[in-house]
């Protein structure tokens, strides 16, 4: 599948934003170590990531001025549900702002808005994942690991952002937060490995024989292409650059998204001040690169069954 930059930015940025929102709420509501300035900055950053991601998603539309119509078909369409959930989740987020500015002593408001914001964030990320997981013609997406990866990547990236904000502003690296963040990164690595294992072992039941219905006659192969140049279908579904470098990119992704951030976070425990800040920023930069590669591969490596109608060697 063609990896559109706007869609990669949308799902990674809004995922990180919703993850960070969850940690900001947990930091305020629960025992999670926090700092009031970090919470405000965390909230602002999560809002920027969410809104930026949602705006980015409209850049791949042919008619972005009609995007308001996308809220209408929530009864059947996961894309519509995603849009609706993103808007719904802004309500408890507004409740949190109200709490901070107007009613700082209203603990009930904080509890209600916080719980709904967290649930809304998780459900929104889940609906994003279901846009892909509900597409049966793309076996690499149409499995439960897709949602697991989207959810854990949102929590992992949001968790790292929260940890860096708190460590930066309090000048103190809290061990509970270190353990939690590293735990999320390791869980992210585990589900991504399981996703890759599932995808590599998954044999689609669709073949050139079932696609043409000619299997009872024998082995089917393309004799002549139906068009001389690439068409929309092949540009959009027959994307094939990544497969050549797939294995190497997976190694780079695994190192930059998981191994390097965890190592650098552990290393940062031994230093203070500017050195700590620089190390934590480099952990974030590394994870950003890794998550970008992961999401790029998620698209570029996914094969659409329509390619069975075309020359096998070129598009499979």
């Amino acid at each position, binding site marked *: 599948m063609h990896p559109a930059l706007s869609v990669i930015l949308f799902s990674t940025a809004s995922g990180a934003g919703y993850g960070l929102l969850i940690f900001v709420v947990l930091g305020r509501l629960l025992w999670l170590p926090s700092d009031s300035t970090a919470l405000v900055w965390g909230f602002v950053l999560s809002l920027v990531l969410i809104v930026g991601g949602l705006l980015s998603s409209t850049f791949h539309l042919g*008619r972005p001025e009609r995007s308001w119509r996308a809220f209408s078909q929530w009864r059947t369409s996961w894309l519509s549900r995603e849009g609706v959930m993103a808007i719904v989740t802004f309500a408890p987020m507004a409740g949190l702002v109200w709490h901070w500015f107007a009613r700082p002593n209203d603990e009930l408001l904080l509890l209600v808005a916080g719980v709904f914001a967290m649930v809304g964030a998780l459900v929104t990320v889940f609906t994003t994942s279901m846009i892909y997981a509900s597409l049966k013609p793309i076996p690499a997406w149409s499995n439960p690991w897709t949602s697991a990866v989207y959810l854990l990547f949102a929590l992992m990236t949001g968790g790292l952002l929260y940890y860096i904000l708190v460590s930066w502003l309090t000048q103190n690296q809290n061990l509970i937060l270190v353990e939690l963040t590293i735990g999320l990164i390791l869980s992210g690595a585990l589900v991504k490995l399981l996703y890759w294992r599932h995808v590599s072992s998954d044999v689609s039941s669709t073949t050139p024989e079932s696609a043409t219905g000619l299997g009872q006659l024998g082995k089917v192969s393309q004799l002549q292409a139906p068009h001389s140049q690439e068409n929309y279908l092949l540009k959009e579904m027959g994307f094939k650059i990544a497969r050549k470098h797939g294995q190497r990119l997976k190694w780079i992704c695994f190192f930059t998204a998981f191994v390097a951030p965890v190592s650098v976070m552990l290393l940062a425990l031994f230093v203070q001040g500017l050195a700590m800040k620089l190390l934590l920023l480099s952990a974030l930069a590394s994870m950003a690169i890794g998550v970008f590669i992961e999401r790029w591969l998620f698209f570029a490596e996914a094969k659409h*069954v329509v390619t069975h109608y075309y020359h096998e060697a070129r598009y499979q």
Partner: protein
Amino acid sequence: MTDLPKTTKKKLGLVIDLDICVGCNACVTSCKEWNTAGYSAPLSDTDPYGADPSGVFFNRVHSYEVINTQGESVTINFPKSCLHCDDAPCVTVCPTGASHKREEDGIVLVDPELCMGCKLCSWACPYGAREYDEHDGIMKKCTLCVDKIYNPNLPEHSRVPACVSACPTGARSFGDLGDEHSPVSQLVKDRGGFDLMPEQGCAPVNKYLPPRQRQPATSQAKPLEEKVESIDNVVLRWVDKILSA
């Protein structure tokens, strides 16, 4: 709404006979010609007379070689367009309500006034039946010539999809596949018509008829003998030997 109708009054669709299609592409060009002035007009082209032309087409003729276990091969011309599925995933994924399946005749359409061009429907269709129009920024697809089959200005025999009118061999039949007594349903029954990609669960309305049994081959063409290139010149033969080592 993008809910699928529980049942449709008719199931209008095509029956494509793979035994007699000769792959002339008349259906491809007549489809383009009618629809570029029709319901979802125009079907834009990019660089039409240049080195790398591309454009929106609703119907394409593929061609396949099928080799059986005895090593005999058959060439099959294979026209492919929207199958107007009963359980159309392209409709239910649509977030705007542009994609819909008509309750009265089962035709799957995109409303060109509502589509926002998110392309999700083209990902959801396993058959590659939808094409995005870069110029208009919206998705387009086979309309089963909805603006031709009901057109009272046309003579009765012309009220069939353009691809059916154009086919010189009669490989394409149009009718109500929901009515078991219709000529198309009878054709499917008699010839063992089948679905494409039944495992995708889309319940396509269009059916394909398999090639008829061929006469068994009475003689086999011998494969060409491998020609051994011999080099007469002794020096060149020596150079060739060294370079080939």
